[in-house]
Structures are given as structure tokens and as C-alpha cells.
């Protein structure tokens, strides 16, 4: 089955550590892929790789921080946690500020490492689900026609059919037809539900209206 499953991507230029880490994580029940450098990871890893990245901070060529920057710009910002032989304050602060999942010494306790990986994978799962739902909702709104988007904007502003008809200079009956079509395409039954979904999908037509109106 080609379906992706959560994988720990270990990136380290030290072959011996790479093998050791891979063994431990496999024995602990993770699915593991190994890469001998940041460049190799960027070239070889699946575009929508799932799970997390465990990378050495100090590597010749592209360093761990370079990898973090490169990943942040993609559609698939997979969580990254750093390992370092010797923690120095400056680079750990920099890594954490840019949203590193965690920052551990290479000889950190096993439990700390495994927990950090579990946490990263879990977070990746949540983030991935959120991203999937948002994409799904956006797809639904993308099906609306231009006129329907116009009507939607007015509906979300809380206007009545009559006001909308007058504003758009169309008949009230046509407005009703558009509203029914929008409800069907977005898959909701009530205007409050439509409002929530539109906000969740971050539809551009969504007006800045005060809550509770």
C-alpha cells in the first residue's frame, strides 16, 4: 500500500550514529529512514513525508538550521527536532525560535528522545489533519461560481434576501436559488453553520464582522 505512514527521518553525517539511532528507533517501533545529509534529505524524501525529522545540528555543507529553513518554505512543514554533540546556547536558541520541535544532546536519555519523537509525530498528525480539512473546505468553496461568491459575501454579512436582491440588482427568487446552491455545494444546512465553515476555510470573501451578529 502506497499510503504514507509516520516515519522518523534521521539526518546525520556521522554514519555510525546514523546506524545506531536507526537501530534504536526501529527497535522502539518507529518506521525509520536515514539520510547522510540535509541535501540528500531534500532530494530524496517524499514531498509529503509524514512523521518528523531528527537532524544533527552540525553537518558539513547544509547544516541542521539550513534544513529547517528549507523545510519551512514547503507545503509540507514536517516537524524537525535537533540533536547536537555539544549544545551551544546560541544555536539552540536560534533553532527553537524558528520553531524547532525540540533540541536534544546526542547523549540525551532514551526516554527523552523517544518522547520528543512521539510528540513531534503526534503534532505532525494533528497539523496534517488540520491542513487536510482546510484544504477540503477550500475545495468546496472553490466550486462556487462568481455570482454565488458575491451572494455568499452578503449572506455572511447577515443581509436578508431582499437586501441582497436589491444590492445585486437581481430578483429575490434568484437570490434564494443561489443560496440553496451554496448550501448544497458547501454541504451545510444553516446559515450559522455556513458562517463557521467559511471562517474555518479562511474564505477571502469573509467580511470582518463582529462576533455574535
Amino acid at each position, binding site marked *: 500500500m502506497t499510503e504514507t505512514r509516520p516515519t522518523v527521518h534521521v539526518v546525520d553525517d*556521522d554514519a*555510525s*550514529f546514523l*546506524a*545506531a*539511532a536507526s*537501530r*534504536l528507533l*526501529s*527497535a*522502539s517501533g518507529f518506521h525509520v529512514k536515514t539520510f547522510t545529509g540535509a541535501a540528500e534529505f531534500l532530494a530524496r524524501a517524499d514531498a509529503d513525508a509524514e512523521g518528523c525529522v531528527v537532524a544533527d545540528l*552540525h*553537518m*558539513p555543507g547544509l547544516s541542521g538550521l539550513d534544513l529547517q529553513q528549507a523545510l519551512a518554505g514547503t507545503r509540507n512543514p514536517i516537524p524537525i527536532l535537533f*540533536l*547536537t*554533540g*555539544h549544545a*551551544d546556547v546560541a544555536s539552540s536558541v536560534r533553532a527553537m525560535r524558528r520553531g524547532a520541535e525540540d533540541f536534544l*544532546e*546526542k*547523549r540525551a536519555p*532514551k526516554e527523552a528522545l523517544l518522547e520528543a519523537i512521539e510528540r513531534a509525530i503526534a503534532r505532525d498528525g494533528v497539523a496534517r489533519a488540520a491542513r487536510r480539512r482546510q484544504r477540503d473546505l477550500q475545495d468546496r468553496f472553490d466550486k462556487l461560481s462568481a455570482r454565488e461568491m458575491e451572494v455568499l459575501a452578503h449572506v455572511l454579512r447577515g443581509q436578508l434576501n431582499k437586501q441582497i436582491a436589491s444590492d445585486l440588482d437581481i430578483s429575490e427568487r434568484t437570490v434564494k436559488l443561489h443560496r440553496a446552491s451554496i448550501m448544497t455545494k458547501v454541504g451545510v444546512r444553516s446559515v450559522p453553520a455556513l458562517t463557521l465553515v467559511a471562517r474555518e476555510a479562511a474564505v477571502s470573501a469573509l467580511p470582518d464582522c463582529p462576533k455574535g451578529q
Partner: protein
Amino acid sequence: MNGVTVVWTLVAGVSVTLAFVHFPVWLRRRGAWSSFFLSSMATGTAALAFCELAMMQARTPEAYATALRTAHIPVWITTVSMVGFMQTFLRPRHLWLAWAVVGLRTLSLLLNFTVGQSLNLGTVTGVHLVPFLGETVAVGKGTFNPWMVVGNTGVVLLGLFAAEAAVGAWRAGHRGTAIRVGGAAVFFALAGVSQSVLVFGLGLDFPTTISLFSLGVLLAMAYELSCDVTRATQLTGDLRESEQRMTMAAEAANLGIWVRDLVRDDIWVSARLRELMSLSGDGPATFERLLRAIHPDDQAPVRQALARAATGVHGGQFRIEYRTLSPDGAVRWLAAQGRVEFDAAGRAVRTRGACSDVTASRLAEGEMQRLREELAHVGRVSALGQLASALAHEINQPLGAILRNAEAAELLLRLPDPDVDEVRAIVDDILADDQRAGAVIDRMRALLRRHEFAMVPLSVHDFVGDVAALVRTDASARHVQLVVDLGHDVPPVLGDRVHLQQVLLNLLSNAMDAIDEARRSVRNIVVSAARDGAGFVQIAVADTGPGIPADRLESIFGSFVTTKPSGMGMGLSISRSLIETHGGRLWAENQASGGASLRFTLAIAAKEKTP
């Protein structure tokens, strides 16, 4: 009073007195053979005088014959003693002449008692009474004994012997002695021969007076010996003076002096030497006791140096420095020099030596060396300190791998059916990583260890490789590419591994700092090596930093010169002194392409010099 009795008694008395004076001298000093011969000749002369007196007072032919025969015994004693004296005192060249005289005299003595009534007169037929010195004395008459020729030949030879000895002494510069002793002896011989021929051969009516001539020789000899005593006294005075001068000089120079008689195995040491060697005042100084006072480590070298000098190498001269241990455990450095003296046969007979305390200068020398090494050590610690973070990373890498492998193995072994092959692979990796961490620690320890300078042949590849391994992590963290490009034909050099590594470490560390300063996109260091002339290898560390201002190419090697906030400013100064200790040079250049190039030369290890 009658003259003859007085004179001859006087001659005997004077002779006996001389014998009494000189015989005890020989008794006390057995080497003084001239005194012995003088006393024996004096005894002989005294006896001869009595014999002559008896001859003169004889009133029958028998009494005369007996006295004449007996007289030959003191004549033999006198002649042999005279020869012995001149042989020992004047040392003539022809020893055979002396033996010939002694031989003829002995033969004469034998003939005297075997042929006729005496050597001179075969038979005494009568005595003529003649007046002599106011007294009537007897002169023997009888048949002439032809064997007297033997005796006279001996006396003539004695004269020749004396003349030859006198000429030798004259030539040797002892003119007075030659005239006095030689002249008296020659006169004795001539007079003796003449008188015996005239009286016994030609029948002259005159008594024999050989003892008078003999006394003349005796007096000349005694005079010479008394001159010797005077000279000896003067020499003693001179000796004492020179000894005092020498003692003063030795004391002024704080020298301890010793003289060892190798034949009698006897040693004399000055008071200062006792002090220097920490010998207690009581008890005689022996060579073994002196040796035991030397530091145990230095005893063998001292023995060897003395034994070597005793073989005659360098004319018997020796020079050595050694330590002594005082009873309170303090170590003192002494410098000793001296000479072994040899006899004519080339045997070592005496050793003279002087030694002085050089502890202070030795300590100062040792202290300088210690300070140099201390400074070099501080330099290494500081250079490694700059690498501390990178080195910790480099050690944590294998340690991390070991930890993860061990954890993985633990998990695998918990399974009901563990994968043994995988566990074995893990154990292999753990061993390899342990070696890797150990190697990093060893490299660091080698540099951090306090260390004594030792020059050995070194492979340039090895010591450059070791330093490159130490620096590589730091370089990669600082995005500097380290290229080691040595070529295959670089011969081994002569050097101290730790110090050369320290120099290279320092140069690489400076190069990385320079690159950081330049902020250029090309960030690399090239370490290269090539032959430099016949006997040297040149090693260069070139960087892509900003280079060194032309006016600072030399001043950067001064002490406390630094451009870095954390630097001590001693790195290049220490490095240059280390390379100069190796007999090489260290200098800085700028490359045409920009960036500095630090270069140093090292001597090629000896066996490579002449391929």
C-alpha cells in the same frame, strides 16, 4: 809527636766520621745510594789508612807482607764504592766500564790472596827503613809480582771511567761537580798507578799513601752531597711557596683538588674537595669513598671517563660533570677536569684532578628549559582550549552512537527471539566507536601532557594527519574546508612530535580565525609540504583570509601580539621558538591570490639526507 801516625790516624778519623754521617741517611732513605757508597768508601778508606800505617810501622818482611796483602781488601771496598757512587751520582753512559773496573779489582783481590805474598810483591825479602815526615817508616823490598798489571789496568780503567763520567756531567751542565768529583777520581787513579809502579816496580824508597788520595775523592764527594742537601732545602722552600700559590689560586677559584697515586692506590684530597664531595672530615679519603659520594646515576660515567683517560686518549685529559649527594639529600653539580700521568713505560701512575661547584649555572639552565617547556605547554593548552567545543562534539559523536547502539541492543534482547546477527553488528559498532572516542582523547592527551623535548624521525603525513583530525570538526563547524595536500615523496623529518603538532595546530587555528575575519565565500586552508633544498622540508599553511599587512609580516611573531579578543598573543612567538629549536625557520608571506601563507622548514631525518 810523629807526623805519620798523626796524619794517617787523622785520615782514618775523618773517613769514619764521614761514614757515620752518611750511613744513617741511607738507612732512613734507601733510595739514597750515593750516601751508601760514600759511607762504604769512607769505611774502606779508614781501613786502608790503618793498613798503610801498619805497613810503615812494620819492622820485619813478614809483617810488611801481611799488611800489604790485607790492604787490598779496603782498596777493593774503596774502588767499588767509588764506582758505585759515580754511577749513581753522575750516571755515565757506559755501564760496562763500571763493571769492568769492578771485575778487574775483584780479580786483583783474588790474585792478591792466591799468587805470591801479595799482588804487588811476590815475595817480601826485606824492608828499608826511610825517614818520612820526621819518622822512620818501612818500605818493602822483594820480587815484583807481574800480576800487578791486572790491578793497575783496573785503576787505569777507573780513571777512564771517572773521566768519561766527568765529561758527561760537564756536558749536562754540572761543571763544578764534573771538575771536583771527576778530577779527584782521575787524580786518585793516576796517583795510585804511578805510586804502585814507582814503589813496587822500580823500588823507590817511599811509602804508599793511597788513603790520602782516597780521602781527597771522599771529600769531593761529601762536598757534592752537602750541596745536594742545600739544594733540597731550597727546593723544599720553593715547593712550599708554589704549593701556597696553588692553594691560594684553588681557593680563590673554589676548586677542590685531588691527586691519586695509581701504583700505591693512595689518594690525597684538599679540604675544599672534602667539602664539595660532602666527605666527613674524619677517616681517610679513599677513591672508593669518593666514588660513593657521587650520585648513583653518575658513578658509572665518572668511572668510564677516568678509565678512558687512563688509556691515554686525549693525552690522558678528562672532563666530566656529575652530581654528588650530600647526607641531607641535596644534589650538587660538580665539574671535574684533570689529567692522568704516565711513566716512561706508558703505564698510568698518577691522576690529578680539580673540580668546582657548577650547581647554580646547572640549575639556571634547567630552570630556563623548564620555563620554555612550561610556556610551550601553556600554548598547547590554550590552543586546545579554543578547540574545546569542537572536540567535545567529536567525542560526543561516538559516545552518542555507543549509547544508542547499547539501548537498541537492550530492546532487541528483550524480544522473545532476538536477532543475534544484528546484536553482533551492534557490538562491533560499539567497539569501533569506542576506539574512535579513545583516539580523539589520545590525540588531545598527547598535546596536553607535560613533555620533554625529544627529536626523532617523524613522518610528515603522520603528524600533519593527527593535527588535521583534531581540527577538522572545528573547521567544518566554521564552514572552513581543510585540504591536506602533501604529495608522496615528502621524506621523514627530524623533530619533536608534540611540539610540531603544537605549531601546526596554532597555524591552523590562526588561519581559521583569519578566514572568519575576511568574510569571503571561498573558505579553505591548504596544508602542503615539499622538499626545500638538499636537507630540508618546507611545510606551508595557506588560508583565504585577508592576508597580513606588509609591515606586520615580521612583528606578528613578537610576544603578546594579538588581534583576537580571546588570544594570549603568544601562539606565533612560541611556534617560532619551537621551530628554531628544531633548527628550522618559521615566517609569513602573502599569497598572490590573497590570504596569508605561514611557512616553516624542518631538517630531513639523517638517513634520508643521502639517498
